[in-house]
């Protein structure tokens, strides 16, 4: 199919050098045409769906920020609690706040699907899709 659509395709088959040249030219031309078409389509899509993108971006922002903030808050609360119990005043908060940041980043990576869910790889191969089907 592709062979036929190429400009000057099948009838140039005889002369070797010319064919190579023509093929390279047509490949370059086709690539440029593809780029132009893709660009046009992409701009058209972004122009049309900008409001929808805003909405989805807002939903994504709430989702990811809640995941991250939750990790940090839990780390801070744990650290503060350990400090109150053990009397190690600044250190528990410092260490657990940093761990909380790590957990927050892990939460974000999980909810975007960049890292597998805990136990998902072993328990069910198809359940590592995360919660990316809504907010």
């Amino acid at each position, binding site marked *: 199919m592709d062979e036929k659509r190429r400009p000057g395709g099948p009838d140039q088959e005889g002369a070797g050098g010319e064919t190579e040249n023509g093929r390279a030219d047509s490949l370059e031309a086709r690539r440029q045409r593809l780029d132009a078409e893709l660009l046009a389509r992409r701009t058209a899509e972004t122009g049309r769906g900008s409001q929808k993108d805003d*909405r989805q971006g807002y*939903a994504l922002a*709430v*989702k990811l920020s*809640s*995941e991250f*903030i*939750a*990790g940090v*808050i*839990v*780390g801070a609360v*744990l650290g503060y609690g350990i400090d109150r119990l053990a009397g190690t005043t600044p250190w528990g908060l410092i260490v*657990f706040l940093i*761990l*909380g940041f*790590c*957990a*927050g980043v*892990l*939460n974000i990576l*999980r909810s975007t699907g960049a890292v597998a*869910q*805990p*136990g*998902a*790889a*072993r*328990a*069910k191969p198809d*359940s590592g899709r995360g*919660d990316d*089907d*809504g*907010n």
Partner: protein
Amino acid sequence: MSNDPIHQFQISKLVPIEIGGLDLSFTNSSLFMVATVAAAAGFLFLTTSNRGMIPSRLQSVSEISYEFVASMLRDGAGSQGMRFFPMVFSLFMFVLVANLLGMFPYFFTVTSHLIVTFALAMLVIGTVVVYGFWKHGLHFLNLFVPSGVPGALMPLVVLIEVISFLSRPISLSVRLFANMLAGHITLKVFAGFVVSLGSMGALGIGGAILPLAMTVALTALEFLVAFLQAYVFAVLTCMYLNDALHPGH
């Protein structure tokens, strides 16, 4: 009518009750929780009381909601997860009906209070922890031990995993709460623009068309969000229950 966008979230005591120094008053929030449960239960009861082989329109709404939650649960937690169906279905219906009731003007939105959504999330996580330990014993702790981590890093990774697990109820509740709160405030602010522009004479009334159109569009969006957040809450519940059922054999 108050023009304060936060005013709609105020708790007011309807029947003050105090037992042993604890304030157990029946508030407007309690009233709307009761209304939510009554509406959801009444709808399901009345629409399915006919038990027609060929369902009427309303009966098929009930059946669709059943099928919807059941397939969500089967996908998320496997067929074993169906033992949690009553809980997931109740949670889904409660959140959905509470969100939708909040769309009525002058109604109170139960899910726009963090403590309510947090209580719902703690119910989910509490079920996961209790069921996980009851079913698997200490094997449940395997959830926090990812495979293929070098021994030296293990304590650190386990600690991070534990914090990540503990942060689940918070992110679950904050997401529902933040979406409902932000949506209702936005709606109120735009509606407030209509009123304050409309009181500025002919030019103001012309300008008020823009925020009015925005309010109409936002109302539609809020109905979508009301459904979507109930769905997300139920999906995440299924995912967490899956951890309790299969803690990484």
